[in-house]
């Protein structure tokens, strides 16, 4: 194929067309971030900001950011924002929401932030049923410090300080934070999405919207956990990030809704459900 087979993409189309995806969300001040090539976190930010815009909540939203690679976005989210310490965002969000109960208040935290340093905070916040939404960007590593093991790192996963792979007998087991929080009565909505492909991204957006709507109704605590790619922390080429996520993290931290409408489903049940559906598809689709 020669170069004249390519379509020009340096300008908007000259023929009549409508824009279906903007370059960036309105609520993102600039796109000049320094996160790694292939990072999944900006994908979540895009969907989150679009949901806030679509719900018309830009002037009623307060974000509370934790500490991780995503902290870089504290300077580019066009929302009133309080920067918290590593692990501490749920408490800060609690204080903010109690003072301004009619605002949409959400936290933005990584797995190291929420499930390591801040495990106690998020559990208590959920148990109390605080009307906030915690958004967890889960890549199974401490990205910002270079890719070290966290409480969500899966068995066998290689990280900077588990170079031979996480070993249960030495390093212990990962925590499924979604399950821990979903079973608390104070939690109204808990879901786990993944941004390894466009369908996952779209599904994540739906979860974020449901969580925010749940908060606005005053239902209680909501959690949206999103598995994101970290090719740097995983020692894989960027193009292999989505596959690694789906295969390595996604088989342990299975995506789906864990708590909705008062019903709690465990990750194990989600996995069994997926396996049943895969089997049915194979059996149903066989010629």
């Amino acid at each position: 194929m020669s170069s004249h087979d390519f379509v020009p993409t340096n300008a908007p189309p000259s023929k009549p067309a409508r824009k279906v995806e903007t370059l960036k969300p309105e609520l993102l001040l600039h796109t000049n971030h320094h996160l790694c090539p292939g990072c999944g976190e900006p994908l979540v930010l895009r969907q989150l900001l679009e949901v806030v815009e679509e719900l018309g909540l830009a002037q009623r939203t307060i974000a509370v950011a934790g500490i991780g690679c995503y902290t870089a976005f504290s300077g580019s989210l066009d929302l009133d924002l309080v920067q918290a310490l590593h692990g501490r965002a749920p408490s800060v969000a609690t204080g903010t929401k109690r003072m301004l109960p009619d605002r949409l208040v959400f936290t933005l935290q990584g797995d190291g932030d929420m499930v390591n340093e801040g495990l106690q905070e998020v559990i208590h916040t959920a148990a109390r049923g605080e009307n906030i939404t915690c958004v967890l960007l889960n890549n199974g590593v401490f990205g910002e410090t270079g890719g070290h093991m966290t409480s969500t790192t899966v068995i066998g996963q290689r990280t900077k300080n588990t170079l031979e792979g996480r070993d249960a007998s030495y390093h212990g087991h990962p925590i499924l934070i979604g399950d821990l929080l979903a079973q608390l009565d104070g939690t109204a909505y808990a879901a786990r999405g993944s941004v390894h492909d466009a369908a996952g991204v779209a599904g994540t957006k739906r979860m974020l919207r449901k969580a925010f709507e749940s908060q606005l109704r005053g239902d209680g605590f909501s959690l949206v956990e999103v598995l994101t790619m970290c090719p740097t922390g995983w020692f894989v080429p960027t193009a292999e990030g989505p596959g690694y996520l789906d295969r390595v993290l996604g088989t342990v931290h299975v995506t789906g809704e864990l708590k909705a409408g008062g019903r709690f489903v465990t990750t194990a049940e989600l996995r069994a459900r997926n396996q049943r559906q895969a089997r049915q598809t194979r059996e149903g689709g066989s010629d």
Partner: protein
Amino acid sequence: MDPVTSRGTLSIALEACKGCELCIPACPPRVLSMSEDVNEMGFRYPLLRPGCTGCGACALVCPDFCFEVYQYTAPVAHAGGAA
């Protein structure tokens, strides 16, 4: 060669691209491929062939906000070349 129809097209901010290649497999009609040359940052960037459906998947999976996605009012035929 049969003309290929594009129902959509893209405007790509190639200087923002960090060459992660996530858009390539994300595109359902597989009309994106990475360039041979590099941008100012030194990364290869995506090039678009005819056949785009304007589905927006590339914009959803791009970490660097490189894509603006359009859907044509009427499908555009490419006769072995650019629109």
